């Protein structure tokens, strides 16, 4: 178990999440893919912190987790709001968000 191998796994996870964000149509599926990308970034931060012995990386990962949970709460509230609109929750049909 080396740091480059872990960073490669984190990059693969990030790319899978990026594909999901770009390609999925349902808003909740896009939010789940964003979670995957956040998770990959956290894994990379903790890997670097582990390989260098930096405690600040763990603190940064903790802040990242808290901010991510706050973000998904607001994001899911937006999805609930969008689910009452005629365009429903398919992102390519939600094209009239100009108020």
């Amino acid at each position: 178990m080396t740091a480059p191998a872990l960073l490669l796994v984190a990059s693969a996870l990030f790319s899978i999440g990026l594909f999901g964000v770009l390609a999925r149509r349902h808003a909740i599926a896009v939010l789940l893919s964003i979670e995957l990308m956040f998770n990959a970034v956290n894994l990379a931060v903790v890997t670097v912190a582990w390989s260098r012995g930096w405690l600040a990386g763990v603190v940064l990962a903790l802040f990242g987790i808290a901010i991510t949970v706050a973000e998904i709460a607001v994001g899911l509230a937006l999805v609930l709001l969008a689910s009452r609109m005629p365009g429903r929750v398919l992102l390519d049909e939600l094209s009239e968000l100009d108020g």
Partner: protein
Amino acid sequence: MRDAAFWSLSVLLLGAAAAVVTARSLIRAAFALAGSLLATAALYLLLTSPLLAAVQVLLYTGGVLTLVVFALVVAGANEPAARFRKPLPAGMLALAVFAALASAIGTLPAGPGVGGLESGRDVGLALFGDYLVPFELLSVLLLAAVFGALLLARRERAS
């Protein structure tokens, strides 16, 4: 032993992630996401950071899974006929990003690192010592997120 655990956890993590982005049913995608978050927590354990693993399981996996399942129940998990929109360019872009990241990782110096993190006590001391101001700002952010989510839900109900 550690290597075997690392490789099996990595396969589990990437397989669950692939299931998240390809699953037709959103409930299955949510539980696959929980699986990949749990695999990440086990990787944190391997990275000698048990506090982070506990936070990942309790706060991240539990919180995100609860929120997503709740939203799916309320908003209705009506899957569209087509899951993807233009999957080929998206896949090519994702592959290009992975290739760029992998080539950047290839240039890293391969020297042996320290390979260890401190215990939860030191993390707590750092949080309430050096990082006290960001920690308190984080509570303001969480309060703003709670108020924002409540405001959005409320406006929807009033209209």
